[in-house]
């Protein structure tokens, strides 16, 4: 059977959205399973160490009890807890990352055949008193100033950006052909998080 035997006529954006949702669900399940296994391991470790001493309250206060073993157990549990917290932070970091692949695909779609992008930078630094927001800086070549302006309009029409500004257009040369270089600055919708 050839490779085209399973076509999918669902819009690509929708397919991608479901794929991301499935990936996130998988991460959540993995994290939950990991936490349950970790908790069970901690509980069994605690039970193994505290079992003999709990069996007889007298032995805890007996002069022969070793306080060093209690200290060691506490330190081991603290290390285990720190390790689990670090793992959880890593998973949350991966899960919370924005998917810039979607942005790249959007740009590729909107650039069509009239615009060639040379540089594309996403900047998440805060500026002065402004709240934190993503900035997208684009540098590229267009067939004419009109093509560059149309590209700006198409970007505005996507509704993804708060603002789109054409910063500069200049004559440029592309393999001997006269084209128009341009720089565009876009501001993406604001985020509430403090980290990208």
């Amino acid at each position, binding site marked *: *059977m*050839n490779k085209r*035997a*399973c076509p*999918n006529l669902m819009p690509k954006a*929708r*397919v991608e959205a*479901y794929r991301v949702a499935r990936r996130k669900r998988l991460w959540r399940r993995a994290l939950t399973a990991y936490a349950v296994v970790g908790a069970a391991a901690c509980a069994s470790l605690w039970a193994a160490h505290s079992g003999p001493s709990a069996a007889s309250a007298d032995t805890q206060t007996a002069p022969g009890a070793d306080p060093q073993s209690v200290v060691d157990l506490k330190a081991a549990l603290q290390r285990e807890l720190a390790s689990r917290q670090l793992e959880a932070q890593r998973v949350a970091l991966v899960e919370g990352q924005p998917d810039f692949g979607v942005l790249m695909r959007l740009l590729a*779609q909107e650039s069509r055949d009239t615009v060639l992008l040379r540089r594309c930078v996403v900047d998440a630094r805060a500026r002065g008193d402004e709240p934190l927001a993503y900035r997208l800086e684009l540098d590229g070549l267009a067939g004419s100033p009109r093509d560059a302006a149309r590209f700006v309009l198409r970007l505005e029409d996507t509704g993804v950006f708060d603002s789109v500004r054409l910063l500069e257009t200049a004559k440029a040369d592309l393999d001997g052909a006269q084209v128009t270089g341009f720089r565009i600055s876009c501001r993406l919708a604001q985020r509430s998080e403090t980290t990208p």
Partner: protein
Amino acid sequence: MNLTANLTRRSPIGLDIGRRRIHAVQFDAGRGQRIAAAVSLTRTHDTAELTAEESERLQNVLERSGFRGRAVVVAARPENTVSAAVQGPAGANDTQLDAVVRHEVARIGAAEPGQMEIAWWPLPAGPRTAAVRECLAVGLTHAGSEALLGPLEAVGFEPRAIDTPATALHRVVAPALGADEPAGPGFAVLIDVGWSGARLYLLDARRVRYQRALDEPALGQELRAISARFGSESLGQWEKVVLELVTGVEADEHASPVAAVAQASLARIGARLAAEAQTSADYARRRDPDSALQALVVCGGGAALAPLISGMEQGVDAPVTVCDAVSLGLDVRSADAAGYDPGMALAAGLARWGGR
């Protein structure tokens, strides 16, 4: 609680949403052709799209009928899709042909290429098309997808794909044509006889070569006309009697002039459909003189009507095969799969969707 059953992986649910009935099929993943669940329910609204009420009912029925999971694969409605045979330059690679196909299908569908999803597959070169690369393309607008998926998503289904009926049917019929063997010169004509219309597909073991809607009066229209002529009983009761008669169940008890008229009418429809199949087969043979018609395959609700099949057998020079579980090599031993019938072939093909 059956723990092993809950741990078994399942395929997505194949959903064939017709004007009159909804068919759903789900396979046991990794167990070959074993159907885990199959169900068919009658629609309550005579509309192309599902209503919110129907979607909710569908969800409840699937839950009670042994289906698992929310992933569904649905078929694009032929009336909403653009289908065309597109030709590109002989030396064109897949990327170049893809660009040609996208623009051509978007032009035919009067839509922007960006507002349409398109699938295509190459066709074998014939004597007349040796100088070009030919492919069969299908396109669906985003608005059409939205209308199809919206009601399902509203009740929590997770659509995995919108497949074309042609490729879905090919997926279940191809193994019966020897798809795993090297491509031979044979081809088959598949006719999907539904309540509101019939479609013809010309396919070989590797691909669908051609498809079209048939101009024949719809089966439902014909049966309604007979019902109106005799019309003493309600349509529902009458249909039940006719279907019992034509399929041979309790024929002696219900033998009546109405049944004789219905049987003769179905046989005539069968003969006309066979003539259409023969015409398409002759056309395919003119394109490729070495090929031969292997079989006329019948699926859809009409495949269950014995007089229709008899009419077809007399009108075509090839064996007529009905898409029942035995012909397709499907395993329906599971208790929840007992309801499988030839009308579910499309739903089975959709459940077999394995793309990304």
